């Protein structure tokens, strides 16, 4: 993803929206599988959660290292500053949005529920149910929705500014 360019602000917000949508998908999957006892890898379904990571920042060393011209030292307060040639510092480091690093499986042990009539019950009559707490999933879902909305607002703000600039 290029750092510069008019639309990079929109791309950053879009990366946030995408990350929250993936989180939302994981939550939906957890809620759908709240009582799933059989999975391809065996055992009950395990809760999934996403891990976010900030996209690596871009450091433009080419511009940072460009220190041309003389630079005066101020040894008393009556000295006037002699600034160095002003390199474009705004290119120094930028965030580049967010990315889903991985979707992890929760390692917490499954919930053991006594239900001898269940086909997947063990010899003591206990069924291993997924380690999902629906209340936690619901609150996560609200958080994901709100974060998504915040990203949409940021997206619209940047878009509005670009549209305004076109009318100059």
């Amino acid at each position, binding site marked *: 993803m290029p750092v*510069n*360019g*008019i639309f*990079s*602000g929109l791309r*950053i*917000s879009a*990366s*946030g929206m995408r*990350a*929250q949508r993936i*989180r939302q998908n994981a939550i939906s999957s957890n809620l759908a599988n709240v009582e799933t006892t059989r999975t391809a890898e065996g055992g009950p379904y395990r809760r999934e959660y996403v891990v*976010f*990571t*900030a996209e690596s920042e871009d450091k433009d060393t080419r511009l940072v290292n460009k220190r041309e*011209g*003389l630079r*005066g030292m101020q040894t008393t307060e009556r000295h*006037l*500053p*002699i*600034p160095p040639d*002003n390199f*474009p*510092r*705004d*290119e*120094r*480091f*930028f*965030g*580049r*949005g*967010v990315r889903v690093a991985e979707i992890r499986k929760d390692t917490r042990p499954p919930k053991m529920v006594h239900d001898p009539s269940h086909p997947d019950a063990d010899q003591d009559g206990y069924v291993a149910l997924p380690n999902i707490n629906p209340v936690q999933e619901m609150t996560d879902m609200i*958080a994901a929705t*709100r*974060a998504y909305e*915040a*990203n949409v*607002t*940021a*997206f619209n*703000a*940047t878009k*509005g*500014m670009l549209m*305004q*600039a076109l*009318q*100059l």
Partner: protein
Amino acid sequence: MTNLRWIGCAREDSHGLGTPIASLIDRLSRSKRMRGPSTVMEGGVMLGELLFQRTALPAVKKSLDAAMLRSRVIGNNIANVNTPGYHRLEVSFEEELREALDRTKLKGTTTDAGHMPIGRKDTGRVNPSVERPVDQTLPSGVNNVDIDTEMAKLAENQILFNYGIRFARGAYRKLNAAIQARSLPLQQ
């Protein structure tokens, strides 16, 4: 005006224009400047300089740059609202611009390429910079991004940008009206 001379010197701004908005605005202002040879008045002041450089427009241009950059940085903070260990970024610009515009400070004029700039900075040399403030608090529990603050800053930044655009539009409109020797319509 008998003392107008035509000389073939291309005017190039010394500072690089970082963001596309700046180049867009710059191109706009260039297209309204005289093309080809510049008009030089008796005192050595170029018409383009008089119309554009010696007004509030360069400062407005810079603050539009800063607002565009800030929207990107705030967007990045919001995108990372759930990223553990993320440190929020901030754009600093206004303080530096205020210093550059402070008329009480001394400023040396550079008339030769070998001259060093001295004292107060040129407005053209003030650039917005992205910083990472040192802040150990954890308002959201996982990082130092406070979503309410970011949203407020986003709104504030948007209004500031709209103001800059409106100001620049008004200035260009006035120039245009003067060039065409007509009065501005009362409602804009």
